[in-house]
């Protein structure tokens, strides 16, 4: 059976889904192809939703302990079942999938379950699970096939003792010890969740500090909390050998001679674009040396009518940016107006504690302007933090050294990912720190941290001027 559409989107994750919806909103006939029976991609099945459901349990447990420590002693039994800690996962996934399927139906988007491969630059073949094939064509395509965990040759992932981000949550019991290879977002999110639940966690990476792209004060905050949970970060180490001992433990040997033994090992050394079997070469699409699909600023591949969006084109590979890329690609394809791409894209990291960042770091502002104005608010100074027993948090504001215009906001602690959006609006609006001093905030809220940080910044600036 051959079908013709105005737009074919391959992959139903955040990028593909938004691309398809945008195409339909522009009145086009859209086909969305997805390997799974419902849309959502890795984000729903292996990523954001399952891990955040487990995280909520760890957070709730931690908060309960902090708020009731004087009257109750809550202990996690050894080898507690992971499934028991994520009982809401299936409900959350079902609800999310149902919402997304309804959205596709509402917009008249045709859905096909199967795997796609290019037969030429204008034609695709879709094969379903039973192997039944169908040909489809369109003047425009969006490739949004996502990514899968990268497994280095020297890490024998068996999904039983040595796991990756697709299999880490399939373990039955909470392991007593866990080695985490890598120090990126996925590595640190899982490391902190397991550590908060009582697993003895060791993170190993070449980088001197975890989450190296963040402002050092924010990543140091993460490391301190990891240590409080009983975990450790072994930076500037290279891996020599990883092996399951054949019985019960995974042995990880490092270049400094150290041997780290743990019940399970989690390999989170990056992700690779999922283009296998897609026959992109037949469509005239080039891959970068790292295996990503090369695109221009509009998301166009070397074949001008084929776009790519999301993890398949590489960093930042966040669900939020992927959605935006999918939407923008389709608008460009059909000549629809689209606003300028925003530079102030926030990054939310769902570690425990939550970390978030928007705009420039202190080091970046100093590099560009010679110096920077810095203001900090510790959550112990914020009434909401005291009330919620969440005093271990930080908001750091970075402003232009001469004008005081806000250039970056970085946060660690409860609601950090929400909190930086206020900073994002300040950056987009070109506001100075005075805005936060003059504004009235609800009391008690974490947003008050902006005023405290702005006052800190103001005080330091006044001292500096007086000293000069």
């Amino acid at each position: 059976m051959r079908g013709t559409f105005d737009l074919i989107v391959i992959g139903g994750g955040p990028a593909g889904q938004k691309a398809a919806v945008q195409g339909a909103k522009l009145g086009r006939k859209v086909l969305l192809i997805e390997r799974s029976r419902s849309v959502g991609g890795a984000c729903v099945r292996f990523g954001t939703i399952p891990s955040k459901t487990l995280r909520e349990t760890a957070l709730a447990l931690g908060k309960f302990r902090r708020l009731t420590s004087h009257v109750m002693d809550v202990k996690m039994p050894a080898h507690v079942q992971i499934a028991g800690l994520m009982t809401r996962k299936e409900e959350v996934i079902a609800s999310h999938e149902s919402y997304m399927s309804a959205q596709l139906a509402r917009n008249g988007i045709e859905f096909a379950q199967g795997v796609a491969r290019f037969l030429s630059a204008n034609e695709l073949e879709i094969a379903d699970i039973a192997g039944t094939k169908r040909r489809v064509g369109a003047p425009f395509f969006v490739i949004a096939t996502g990514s899968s965990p990268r497994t280095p040759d020297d890490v024998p992932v068996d999904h039983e003792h040595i796991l990756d981000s697709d299999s880490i949550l399939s373990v039955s019991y909470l392991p007593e010890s866990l080695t985490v290879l890598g120090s990126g977002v996925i590595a640190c999110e899982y490391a902190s969740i397991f550590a908060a639940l009582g697993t003895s966690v060791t993170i190993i990476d070449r980088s001197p500090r975890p989450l190296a792209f963040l402002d050092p004060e924010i990543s140091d905050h993460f490391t301190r909390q990891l240590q409080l949970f009983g975990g450790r970060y072994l930076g500037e180490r290279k891996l020599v050998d990883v092996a399951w001992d054949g019985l019960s433990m995974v042995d990880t040997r490092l270049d400094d001679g150290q041997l780290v033994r743990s019940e399970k090992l989690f390999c989170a050394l990056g992700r690779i674009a999922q283009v296998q079997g897609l026959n992109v070469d037949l469509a005239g699409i080039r891959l970068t040396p790292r295996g990503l699909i090369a695109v221009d600023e509009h998301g166009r591949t070397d074949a001008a009518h084929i776009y790519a969006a999301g993890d398949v084109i590489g960093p930042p590979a966040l669900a939020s940016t992927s959605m935006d890329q999918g939407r923008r690609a389709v608008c460009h394809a059909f000549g629809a107006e689209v606003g300028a791409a925003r530079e102030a894209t926030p990054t939310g990291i769902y570690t425990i504690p939550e970390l978030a960042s928007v705009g420039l770091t202190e080091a970046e502002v100093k590099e560009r302007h010679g110096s920077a104005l810095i203001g900090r608010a510790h959550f112990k100074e914020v009434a909401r933090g005291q009330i919620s027993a969440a005093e271990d948090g930080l908001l750091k504001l970075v402003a232009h050294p001469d004008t005081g215009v806000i250039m970056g906001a970085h946060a660690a602690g409860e609601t950090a990912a929400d909190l930086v959006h206020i900073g994002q609006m300040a950056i987009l609006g070109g506001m100075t720190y005075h805005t936060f001093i003059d504004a009235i905030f609800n009391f008690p809220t974490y947003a008050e941290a902006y005023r405290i940080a702005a006052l800190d910044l103001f005080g330091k600036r006044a001292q500096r001027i007086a000293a000069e």
Partner: protein
Amino acid sequence: MHSEVEVAQNRKPDIGVPAAIRSELESRLSAGSLELPLLPGVAMEITSAAAKEDADARTIADMLKRDAALSAHVLRIVNSPVYSPRAQIVSLQQAVARVGAVKIREIALVIACRTGVFKAKGYEQEIDQVFTHSIGTALFAQEIARNTRNNVEDAFLCGLLHDVGRPVLLQALVTLLREAKVVATREAVLELVSELHEAAGSALARAWALPETVIVALGKHHTSCPEQESTPVRIVSLADRFAHLTERGAVLTSDAVLGHPALAALEIYPDVLEKIVKRAGVVKETIGVMS
């Protein structure tokens, strides 16, 4: 041991098992009064001890020492290529410490089930076949779980015990027939066992306090709608098919399982199916070691 293809589930035996005995067996099963075999003392103690959070290697090793045959089997299995230890395991405490209490429980269960838990005179060969088939199903279940990013340990345990209801029923049925002084045809006995083994397996798993995932997998692994069942049920349903095909001596190919409803339920595309099929040789080799 007979697949759903071989035995039509709703077909009543034509001759052999009298309706009264069949009815008695069914009512005992539904009332939960079917006599269930107990695990031998040591295996039972190990199963309960392994489930406790403070289970330590020394205690479990001490339990094992009381059963020489079980100890010997444990040492043989932990030193086999299946576990491929780097150093030879020479003591029971070392075995428990390195394999872990949960794995020792699995090994103790397999050995106990094979060595005299179930007694049905005249059907010893069938009981033996059940456990060889179960090891194959467990190993295939492990491979399916690995390739679909599901829990490998759960899949193994569910596969290992999926047909345990068959020897339970054989034992009960042979006793009932003997007491009633009735001689039933072998075919009729096995057919009735096949029909009711899921419910019996599930009842036994509950009596042995096994995890809920195992109870469900044992009770539903012949479902015609794996789509509506839990992941372990889907995995065991497919692994059961793989194991049967392997036992028939044929070279396992993807085509032989195409169309199995669990493939769609587990979203196993031909590329992933091929990876599982390629492991058939290793599975066969391992069955030889564990049987």
